[in-house]
């Protein structure tokens, strides 16, 4: 009698642990994902400053600068859905690339203190963004491990927890920006 109670109790404890592991890892994924969002926001906030600094020194880059400002407004729009956000982000990356290449033609701009500081901030933002993506992937890895391995996979199935996919670079982003000479 007591033995059965003991076994049942023991099993219950195990189930509680498994459940908690699954929930903790799922939450870690969500947390990491929102961190990426925060980093992206911070990066968007640097854009107006960038546009102002470059405007002062350049004559021919109006097109790219206007594009960047529009994209930034679109990115910070709260009503954009996930797909739109990704599309905007990719376009933004491409245009930033084009701008950085164009800046090569303006040695005064490249040497200005303002621009150098901005570049430092942008580099730091990129590095932080990369770090948050890596943290996200690590959280996904842990979660997937819990969802797929025995014995937590049984509980995961019951709770309808599915395997999630890693953060991948979209194919468009992988293309190197073309230089229009």
């Amino acid at each position, binding site marked *: 009698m007591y033995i059965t109670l003991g076994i049942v109790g023991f099993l219950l404890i195990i189930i509680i642990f498994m459940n908690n592991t699954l929930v903790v890892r799922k939450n870690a994924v969500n947390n*990491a994902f929102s961190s990426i969002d925060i980093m992206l926001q911070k990066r968007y906030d640097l854009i107006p400053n960038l546009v102002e600094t470059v405007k002062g020194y350049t004559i021919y880059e109006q097109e790219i600068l206007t594009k960047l400002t529009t994209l930034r407004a679109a990115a910070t729009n709260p009503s954009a859905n996930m797909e739109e956000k990704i599309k905007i982000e990719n376009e933004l990356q491409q245009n930033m690339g084009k701008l950085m290449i164009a800046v090569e033609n303006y040695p005064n701009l490249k040497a200005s203190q303002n621009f150098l500081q901005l570049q*430092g901030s942008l*580099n*730091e933002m990129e*590095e*932080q963004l990369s*770090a948050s993506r*890596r943290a996200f992937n*690590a959280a996904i890895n842990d979660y997937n491990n819990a969802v797929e391995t025995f014995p937590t996979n049984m509980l995961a199935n019951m709770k309808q927890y599915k395997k999630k996919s890693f953060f991948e670079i979209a194919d468009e982003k992988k293309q190197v920006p073309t230089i229009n000479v």
Partner: protein
Amino acid sequence: METYDAFKSYYQKELLSDLNLLEKERKKVLKQFLMASALFLVGGIGCLGIYYVHATPVLYVVPAALIIYTVICYMKYSKLKAVYSINFKKNIIRRIVDFIQPGLNYYPEKCISQKLFTDSDIFRQSIDSYAGDDCISGTIGKTNFSFSELHAQHREVYYNNGRRQERWVKIFKGIFFVADFNKHFNGRTFVLPDKAENFLGGIFKFVQKLTVGRGQLVKLENPQFEKEFVVYSDDQIEARYILSPALMERILKFRQEANSHILLSFVNSCMFLAIPIGANLFEAKIFSSGMKFEYLVSYYRYMNLAISIIEELNLNTRIWTKT
């Protein structure tokens, strides 16, 4: 950073003449020691002799005087030894440092401060004895750094058959390096040797003591790095910001070159690196020739290793907000 061959030719061209002079001084110091020891032996035998022969106690005065003289000789030896050591360090080691990297400061009798050592938070036991020497500091490129030999110990009380006894337990002995890191960060991140790598029980306990209460475990993507090290941090993202894939590779490479376990911590926008080494480095030998190239090359190797940390870990790349 110079190569081994360049150092050999430097040794032959520049150092040998000074080494010869120092060698003469060393021989004097050695003679003093031998004399002191001989006198002590004679005095001791004399005392014993008088005791066994049952001669008048007055005769004890002679060996007693000898022993007192021995003590004086011994004190003289200590003083000579200290002077010789300082001369050796100021002359030879100072020049080896200049050869590896000109423009650095070398303080033979100073060491990294205990505050900085505890700030690094790598070693958490309370320190009962702290000593060190051979401090080298300066700036290479944009990075300020300093390092020294350190020996920190902890006095442990234990009970043996009910009797209270004390012993000294080593906390750290080796080279301790501090540098200004090239990125800003707020929290603490630790890179410590991985438990699983170490089968020896002693190291198990040592590492376990290090790992409790250090924040979250951070699992990184580099499998080789994960095998060698275990990473703890207050913040998962900050840990990855600091430990970029490139830096992880560099740390691995440095670990191989050092041929010893290394411990790192990133605190207060500084990087701390501890290389545990058993022997006393950079000391002037008395009982054997301090002139041999093989002997000097080991100084050179450790000195070079520490100074090369900045280049090896790419600390001079300052493309982020910290300049």
